[in-house]
């Protein structure tokens, strides 16, 4: 098994996800299997292959520095579950 329960809990915590003990065990199994399968690639000799920095063969797609109309304040906030004083409102953030 390439993935431990601690790995799962750690990644879950980074993603702000909460799992039961059973779910952690199941995820360690399932994700571990996926990673093991991907490990197959490590068997290949890639010493003569250039590193892939990016999967897209396209490069240099740029935009001109020209202003276009924005959303109105009402439009921007239309989907917000909560808003106040023209702002998005989120649970209190402690610094």
């Amino acid at each position, binding site marked *: 098994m390439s993935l431990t329960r601690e790995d799962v809990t750690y990644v879950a*915590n*980074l993603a*702000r996800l909460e799992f039961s003990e059973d779910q952690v065990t199941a995820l360690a199994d399932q994700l571990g299997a996926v990673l093991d399968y991907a490990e197959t690639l490590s068997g290949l000799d890639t010493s003569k292959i250039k590193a892939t*920095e*990016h*999967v*897209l063969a*396209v*490069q*240099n*797609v*740029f*935009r*001109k*520095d*020209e*202003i*276009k109309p*924005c*959303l*109105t*304040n009402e439009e*921007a*906030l239309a989907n917000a579950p*909560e808003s*106040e*004083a*023209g*702002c*998005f*409102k*989120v*649970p*209190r*953030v402690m*610094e």
Partner: protein
Amino acid sequence: MEYEIVIGMEIHIELGTKTKIFCSCPTEFGQDENTHTCPVCLGMPGVLPVLNEKVVEYATRAGLALNCEIAHFSKMDRKNYFYPDLPKAYQTSQFDLPICTGGDVEIEVDGVKKDIGITRIHIEEDAGKLLHESADGTLLDVNRCGVPLIEIVTEPDLRSAEEARAFAEKVRNILEYTGVSDCKMEQGSMRFDVNLSIREKGSEVLGTRTEMKNLNSFRALIRAVQYESKRQIIEIKKGHTIIQETRKWDDTKGTSSSLRSKEEAHDYRYFPEPDLVPIVLEPEYIEKIKSELPELPEAKKQRYIDEYKLPEYDAGVLTTTGVTARFFEESVVLYNEPKQISNWMMVEIPPLLKEKELSMENITITPAQLVELLKLVKNNEISGNTGKEVLKEMFNTGKNPGDIVKEKGLAQMSDTGELEAIIEEIVSANPKSVEDIGAGNEKAYGFLTGQVMKATKGKANAQVANELIRTVVARHLA
């Protein structure tokens, strides 16, 4: 034991583009909340960011001005973390292939010159602004989200608060010259993070460092470095170990406090940004930008010394900011008296700016007006002291110096006939002084000069008056 402070800095600078880094929303500062947004910078699903070409150009220009190598190939990455000022839950930044690497900046502290290494410069987007004004929550303004930033990362080459300040000022100076940013501290266009550790002097090993983020003034930078280095030295002397952590600097209290321990907070799980394609810069592009770089502060300073024969000190002061240098150069084109212009710009103008709460950026007089004033002084039409009064009046009213002199009747009396008549009167009225002079008491001249100045309301040309007084007194003694 003697300790050494080791500092590395990260400087975030907002680039002065018209639009954001990945969308066409304006970057203007100080607008109503959430009025400069679009689906891209709001982080809506399914949108496609496109890189602003000016961001690449400005970052390249900044990199060249700071002596960096410009990468032939660089790419954008996602830096993942949760914080409500980041609608996407990741910041689009650059990880392993930044646009610039390996630069250096020379600083000078107490006459000692030193090179500070720049590890890298990368481009990224700014986050939104959290407003803690609501009673039961936190409010978010997304306007700043997606404003382009460059982050300059230094080597741990700095050894004191003064060096950190000198470096930050030099970088600001250079970048302001290149025009990539206005570097306005008060608008958050330039922010500093400080990594600081302490080690025994002479040691090659780095101590455990702490990080202080978002210092937004030179004063905060200096005070935070002083406080944190003292705190760490005290901890070490007590035999405590320094914990690697992020600390928050409270500029009002003048203290720092622990924010979070580093290991849990800094797993950003970077990966290449799939929505943005790599940036490939050809040597011709880089050369072109290099050829368009303006004269940088160091070169300008040298030119002022060589071309205008200014003392090194003057040249340094005049080239501190691009706007000051421009004001000087525009003045000197109109009037080839560099030293006189320099004196007035260094001595007379700063206190007036301070009084009016202005800076060279929004100074209310023009180079042409200053030059007109300096010519009046040079030609003895007004005295230097009157000139200072006129300058003040120019700041107050925006009027031209010539008009002020006329309106207030400040022109010097160089007409010897008129002046001689006044002097004759004064000398006749003060036989005691003439007697004293006759007896060898030169001080009595001072009294007579004072009387003449009083009678002419300070408008007498001092040199002409002094000569005339001597002539008239001699006549009386004869």
